[in-house]
């Protein structure tokens, strides 16, 4: 048995591996839809907005239960998305500024609440900050159970509502015309994103959660023109990155898993950017080159033809 494999005989490491893979898988799926709807950075905003929600949930309940955190973060996420929408619709501030405002103000509120909790001397709070800023090594069986159930649910919902989500991503106006409950589906998709973010931040942290939502989906986009393939590919890329991150982290390098997972997905992205057929840089270069060669050949042959004709005329 190879040396690196022995680590995975440890049940704890297996939980972490499974957790990171499931997380990458579900965030890849949800990320594909948010990328197509041009809402990539919404995941970033939602991840930051989760902080005050989690803190308030902790302050009200006094316990560190993932279910309550999920509710708190979901509530905060809804307020954040509503705030972003309200600011862009009712003032002259554009969406990017609205995102940045909501993101930073929520995170500011979150740090105030977090430090307030930490200074209040509640002994139960220790580790709350680690929990929020990502520590995949602290994942235990229960967390992975929650992760598996939520990712299965997410994958199930996305399969059942695939047609609706597809229509919503490409042509929401047409979807409304056909009588689909667009506002409801919109909110549902946002809710699924909140769920992924909340489940994910304990593994990779608030800032890097955005990467798991964006990077695998973007990489998948390079390889295909079909939504179904893209969603599956994004899920696979996410799971692959989670696996690679856990492997490198577990092999004695003593590096945090979250950032390594993100870097692994960035590596997948770079490969896609360079070498994907059709849309990658290399393939674009080849297409350009063949087009140019064909054109010069054509020019040369017509020039030769013209010359021949002139000679004949003479």
């Amino acid at each position: 048995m190879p040396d690196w494999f022995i680590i995975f005989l440890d049940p704890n490491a297996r939980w972490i591996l499974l957790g990171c893979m499931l997380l990458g898988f579900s965030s890849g799926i949800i990320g594909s839809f948010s990328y197509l709807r041009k809402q990539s950075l919404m995941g970033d905003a939602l991840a930051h907005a989760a902080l005050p929600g989690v803190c308030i949930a902790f302050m009200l309940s006094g316990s560190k239960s993932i279910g309550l955190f999920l509710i708190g973060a979901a509530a905060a996420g809804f307020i954040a998305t509503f705030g972003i929408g309200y600011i862009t619709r009712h003032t002259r501030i554009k969406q990017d500024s609205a995102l940045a405002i909501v993101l930073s103000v929520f995170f500011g509120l979150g740090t105030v609440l977090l430090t307030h909790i930490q200074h209040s001397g509640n002994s139960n709070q220790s580790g709350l900050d680690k929990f929020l800023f990502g520590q995949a090594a602290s994942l235990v069986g229960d967390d992975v159970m929650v992760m598996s159930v939520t990712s299965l649910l997410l994958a199930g919902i996305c399969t059942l509502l695939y047609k609706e989500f597809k229509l919503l991503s490409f042509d929401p106006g047409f979807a409304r015309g056909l009588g689909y409950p667009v506002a409801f589906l919109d909110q549902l998709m946002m809710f699924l994103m909140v769920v992924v973010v909340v489940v994910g931040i304990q593994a990779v942290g608030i800032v890097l959660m955005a990467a798991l939502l964006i990077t695998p989906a973007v990489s998948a986009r390079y390889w295909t023109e079909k939504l179904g393939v893209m969603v599956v590919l994004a899920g696979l890329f996410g799971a692959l990155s989670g696996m690679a991150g856990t492997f490198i982290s577990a092999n004695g390098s003593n590096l945090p898993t979250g950032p390594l997972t993100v870097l692994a997905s960035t590596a997948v992205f770079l490969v896609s950017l360079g070498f994907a057929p059709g849309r990658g840089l290399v393939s674009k270069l080849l297409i350009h080159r063949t087009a140019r060669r064909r054109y010069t050949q054509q020019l040369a042959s017509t020039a030769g033809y013209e010359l021949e004709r002139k000679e004949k005329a003479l």
Partner: protein
Amino acid sequence: MSDLWIIVTGALVASACGIVGCFLVLRKMAMIGDAISHSVLPGIVIAFLVSGSRDSLFMLLGAAGIGLVTVLLIQLIHQSGLQSDASIGVVFTALFAIGIILVSVYTRDIDLDLDCVLYGEIAYIPWNTLQLGSLDMGPKAVWGIGLALLLSVALIGIFYKQFKLTSFDPTFAAAVGIPVALFHYLLMSLVSVTTVASFESVGAILVVGMLVVPPATAYLLTDRLGRMMIYSVVIGCISSAAGYYAAQFLDASIAGSMVSTAGFLFVIALLFSPRHGVLLRKWKQRRILADAAAEPFV
């Protein structure tokens, strides 16, 4: 005395960020500010490892360099056919991940605390003073941020017309011969330098708040660029002073309270601004409707 230094530092951070932030808001580049503020982390760590000290010109240069690299990468990926927000997300998260890994590799040997990098610790500012011979020159952070502020004010003051024109109408600016790309990168370097100088006191994520929230509030209050910059500096200073006392009262993070106060001021402007406020606009609409209803048909 230390109270005063903290408020002064906060006000300087808010002013420096507010001035360059106005241009970010006007150019619809707020999220690029967010990206730069995250991606300077590896720049800071590398500069720290190369120079071995925390308060050097290296740090500013390293971070300004990596800020420009971030902007370039975002543009390159965007030009290869990706949506701009997705390219921002891919680039800054990757650089931030590199930064965290660098910190965690070298953190055992050096005193660069990840928490401090992420949140900043403005409360320690007064004790880290600059000694010139035997003379106590005040906190180092004040000098650093003061210099960054001076640089922004000087550059934007000298090239005010060019910055204004390239922000509002880049095509026209290019047509009259202003090097638009040069001013774009100049602004991006100013953002990076300001971010690095503010880093130590407010942290990576809250710099964004200082960059965007006061200028956006000012944007709701006025239609003139000059006034917008002055308003955003004033709003930033008010939020830093009020935020400091709120933090004292709540026993919580000072930087967090400053941004929260700025957010509170933004909500007030959003609702009650005389020009662009939601409530007043609604009231005006209602009055017009009432007037129209009261008027008899002719």
